[in-house]
C-alpha cells in the first residue's frame, strides 16, 4: 500500500552510502529550498487561519501543491477558497477555474500517479461543475465533455501502469457517475483489450468479472433469451481463459479468474465439472509433456479445488472415495512442488480425511 504515506515511505528508492561530506553538501543544497518551503507553508497556514479567501491565497495554494501534492490541508484550503471567492461568481468563471484545476492535477498525476489526494481533488472538480441545463441545455456540453474526457485521461494512466489501482478505482467511479452512462458492453470490450495485451493484468480480469456480473444481474432481456445469452458469454469466457491458461500457466491471474467463472456457474457445477477438470488436466498434460518434469501448480491447485467443491456440495452424486483419493494424491504432490504453502496442503489433507 503506497499512499497516503508515499513521501514518507521511500518505495523502490535505492540506498546509497553517504559520507559526512555528501551529507554536508546535500544540507547546503537543500538549505534555501527548505527555507522557501517553510516560509510558503507559513503564509498559507496563516492565511487559512485568518480566513483569507482571496485570489492571491488561491494562487499560493497552487504554488505549494505543485511542490507537494500530498499537503492535504492545502487542497482543503483551496476548495474552501473556491467556495467563498468572488472572482468565480459567474458560471464561466467557475468553469475556467475547474478546467485549470483539471489540467493542474493532470500534470501532478503524471509525476505522482499514486497520490490519493490528487485523484480525490479531480473527483471534487467534476462534482462541482455547475448544472446549467435549466437556462440553456447546450451549456451542459461542457459538463458532459469533462466527464467523457476523464475516461480518456484514465485510459492514458492505465496505459502507462495497467495495474494502478487508483486509476482503476477512478475509472469505475467515472463509469458509475458520468452524466450520460456508457453501455456495459463497451467496458467489456475495454477489459478484452487490456487482457489481450497482457494476460497477467489481474486488475483487468477483476474489472471483467465485475462488468460480467452486472451484465448478468441486469435482466433487461426476457428470461429465456437472457439465459441463452448468458450461456454464450459464459462459453466465450471459458475459451478466453483457456487461451490464457496455455499462454501463461504460471500466472495467478488466470487461475483466479477461472475460479471466479466456475464459482459464478456453481449451480451447474455437477454438469460441467468433468468437462472442466478434463480441460484443466489437458492443459496440465500438455505443459508436462513439453517439459517432462514440470508440474503446473496452478493447474493442480485448481483441479483439487473443483474436486473439493464436488465433495462438499454434491456428496450424494459423486464417487466420494475416488475423489478424496485423487485429491489426497495431488495434495501430497503439491507439498513437494510448492513448499512455501506446504502446511496449507497438509491442512487440506486433514480436512478431507475428516
Amino acid at each position, binding site marked *: *500500500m503506497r499512499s*497516503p*504515506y508515499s*513521501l*514518507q*515511505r*521511500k*518505495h*523502490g*528508492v*535505492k*540506498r546509497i*552510502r553517504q559520507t559526512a561530506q555528501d551529507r554536508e553538501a546535500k*544540507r547546503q543544497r*537543500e*538549505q534555501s*529550498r*527548505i527555507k522557501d*518551503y*517553510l516560509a510558503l*507553508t507559513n503564509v498559507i*497556514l496563516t492565511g*487559512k487561519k485568518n480566513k483569507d479567501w482571496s485570489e492571491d491565497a488561491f494562487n499560493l495554494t497552487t504554488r505549494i501543491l505543485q*511542490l*507537494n501534492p*500530498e*499537503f*492535504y*490541508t492545502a487542497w*482543503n484550503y483551496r*476548495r474552501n477558497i473556491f467556495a467563498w471567492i468572488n472572482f468565480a461568481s459567474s458560471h464561466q468563471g467557475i468553469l475556467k477555474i475547474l478546467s485549470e484545476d483539471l489540467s493542474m492535477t493532470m500534470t501532478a498525476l503524471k509525476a505522482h500517479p499514486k497520490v490519493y489526494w490528487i485523484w*480525490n481533488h479531480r*473527483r*471534487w472538480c467534476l462534482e462541482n461543475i455547475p448544472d446549467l441545463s435549466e437556462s440553456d441545455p447546450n451549456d451542459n456540453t461542457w459538463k458532459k465533455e469533462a466527464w467523457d474526457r476523464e475516461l480518456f485521461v484514465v485510459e492514458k494512466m492505465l496505459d502507462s501502469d495497467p*495495474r494502478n*489501482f487508483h486509476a*482503476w*478505482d477512478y475509472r*469505475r467511479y467515472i463509469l458509475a457517475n458520468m452524466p450520460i452512462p456508457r453501455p456495459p458492453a463497451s467496458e467489456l470490450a475495454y477489459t478484452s483489450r487490456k487482457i489481450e495485451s497482457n494476460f*497477467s*493484468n*489481474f*486488475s483487468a480480469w*477483476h*474489472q471483467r*468479472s*465485475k462488468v460480467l456480473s452486472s451484465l448478468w444481474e441486469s435482466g433487461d432481456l426476457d428470461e429465456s433469451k437472457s439465459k441463452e445469452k448468458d450461456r454464450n458469454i459464459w462459453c466465450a469466457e471459458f475459451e478466453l481463459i483457456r487461451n490464457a491458461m496455455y499462454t501463461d500457466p504460471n*500466472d*495467478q*491471474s488466470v487461475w*483466479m479468474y477461472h*475460479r*471466479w467463472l466456475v*464459482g*459464478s456457474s456453481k449451480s451447474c457445477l455437477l454438469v460441467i465439472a468433468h468437462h472442466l477438470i478434463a480441460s484443466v488436466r489437458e492443459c496440465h498434460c500438455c505443459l508436462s509433456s513439453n517439459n517432462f518434469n514440470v508440474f503446473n501448480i496452478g493447474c493442480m491447485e485448481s483441479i483439487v479445488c473443483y474436486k473439493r467443491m464436488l465433495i462438499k456440495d454434491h456428496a450424494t452424486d459423486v464417487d466420494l472415495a475416488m475423489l478424496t483419493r485423487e485429491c489426497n494424491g495431488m495434495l501430497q504432490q503439491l507439498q513437494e512442488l510448492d*513448499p*512455501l*504453502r*506446504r502446511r*496449507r496442503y497438509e491442512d487440506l489433507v486433514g480436512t478431507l480425511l475428516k
Partner: protein
Amino acid sequence: MCANPTQLLIPLHVSYIQKLGDSKDDLAYHLSAHLRLNAIYWGYTALAIMNHPDALDREQMIDFVMSCWDQEAGAFGAHPDHDAHLLSTLSAIQILTAQDAVDKVDVDCVVKFILSLHQPSGVFAGDQFGEIDTRFLYCAVSALSLLGRLHELDKDGKREKTVEYILRCRNYDGGFGSCVGAESHAAQVFVCVAALAILDRMDCVDVDTLAFWLCERQLPNGGLNGRPEKLEDVCYSFWVLSSLSILGKVHWIDVDKLVAFILSAQDTENGGIADRPGDMVDVFHTLFGVAGLSILGYPGLVDLDPIYCMPAKLIEAKGLRKSWEALPRREA
C-alpha cells in the same frame, strides 16, 4: 557490518527511530509534515514491540499530539495547524492510549467528529470533504473501540450498515477492496478483516478462500506482495500476516523464508528497514517489518495485537482482546 543480516538489529533501529526528529536539515522531513503524527505512532509502536517503549520522551510525545488538535473540527490533524482527518485522529488516539493520556482529550468531541463522517452507505469519509475508503472505516471503528465508545455505532443501525458496506467490498477471491467494486488488496484486506473482528462479525468471512489468497502472496524469495503478479514489499509482512493471524492461519506461509526476507531489508549501517533489500529505509516499513517479525514469533520481541497494531498486553488490559493467533515466541 554483515551485508545480509541474520538477526534483527534492535539497538540500531532504536537509535534510527530516536534520531528521526533530528532530520530538520532534510527537505523530505518537511515535505512529509502531513504524516508527522502517523510517523510518531509508527516509530513509537516499533520501539514498543522491540521492548524499548521508553526510548522516546513521553511528555514531548503527548505535547506534540495535543498540538495537532484542530479545534474547529474537534479532532486531530497530522501536524499543528493541519486539518483534522481520520488517519491522523486514529494515530493520535493510539499514541495517547499507549501513553495512558486519553484524559487530555475531549473524547465526546472526537466521537462526534468520527460519527459525523459515517455515510448512509455504511462506509466512513476521511474528513468533511467526503473521500471514502475502507481504510477510513477501520480508523473510525478502531478509534471508537479504543475510546470505549464502540456502542455509539448501535444508534440508528450504523453498526449493521458498516458491516454491510465491508461485505459489499468483498470479492470472489475472498479478499476486500478499498470501496465497492475495487480489486482485492492485502492492506484493504487487513482493514476490512480487522474492522469485522472489532465488530464481532468474523462469522462473515470465508476463511478458507481468503487465507488461500493471502498465502498465495508469498513469492519464491520469501517476501509477500499485496496483489497477484506484483512485487514483494516488507509492509505486506504486516497487512498479510495480521489478516492470517486473525484467521488463525499464519502457518500457511513459509515462516523462515519470510523472516529472512524482512531481515535482509535492514540497513545494517544506520538502522531502519526498507521496502526491500538495498532500498532506502523509512519508519513506516520499520514498524511493519518489526510487526511482521513479532507475529512470526521472532525471539526477543513483544507480542503485537494484529487487530489494533498495538502491544498485545495493552489491548488485553483494556479488555479489547479478540480472537487471533500468532506463532509462539521462540527462544533466542
